């Protein structure tokens, strides 16, 4: 159970792609927070979070998105979310995430969206 969550990092041009695997709950959220914090501090503010491998999310995980989004946008960046499974999307929906975040079907669409709308008005 120790390896039930991981965050992978890669780059697509000037965009940071964070790839989530496994479950994001109150236990694993600090790992995700640390990675986003590092991106933020390094000034890498164009962030895609790829959720294809994310099997579960609770409010602790959602909270990580919430606590960075305003600061990232204030600095002309954005966090875009892609490849969300149905189960995870349902949780996003209950809390109204789709009105606050750009949620795209796949990574290519998320990259494309950065070209069209670098910052989203929250």
């Amino acid at each position, binding site marked *: *159970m120790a390896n*039930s969550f991981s965050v992978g990092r890669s780059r697509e041009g000037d965009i940071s792609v964070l790839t989530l695997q496994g*479950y994001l*709950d*109150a*236990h694993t959220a600090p790992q995700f927070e640390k990675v986003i914090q590092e991106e933020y501090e390094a000034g890498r503010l164009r962030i895609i979070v790829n959720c294809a491998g994310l099997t*579960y999310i*609770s*409010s*602790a995980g*959602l*909270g*990580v998105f*919430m*606590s960075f*989004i*305003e*600061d990232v946008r204030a600095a002309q960046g954005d966090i875009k979310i892609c490849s969300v499974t149905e*189960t995870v999307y*349902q*949780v996003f929906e*209950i*809390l*109204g*995430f789709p*009105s*606050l975040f750009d949620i795209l079907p796949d990574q290519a669409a998320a990259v494309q969206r950065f070209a069209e709308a670098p910052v989203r008005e*929250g």
Partner: protein
Amino acid sequence: MDSMERTFQLHVPSSTENLAMIRDFVAKIGERAGMSEGDVKKLELAVDEACANVIEHAYGSDGTREVRVKVTFDSEMVQIEIMDTGRGFDPSKVEENNLEQLARGRKSGGLGLRLIRSVMDEVQYQIVPGQKNELRMVKRLKPAESKPKPKD
């Protein structure tokens, strides 16, 4: 399925590393009760949120206390009781922030109770701070779920 009531209990130390075990436990019982996959996921979510709150707020992240989860089901519903002996709180005093307010305030809190209330059919707290705090939640089975499922 017969209408006999069945009761399951899980007691674990109050550490977030046990949340996955708690989710697996309720998921298995939800399946056994005949819930759809989607409803099982909602049950897991509500219990996870409630137990994470117990660990963080009732016990102030002290990992050496105990979280108790009791699950009962019959042909009509799954009932979950979550018990702690921690600090307690007044659920009616918890502010309901919307997402925009939370984002503006750089706050992440307040989503858990909202999720619990939106996925469960009944949610009641009974709080006796430091002695026994209890959260009782019910998810009703849909008529199709409480019928025996065809074997494939």
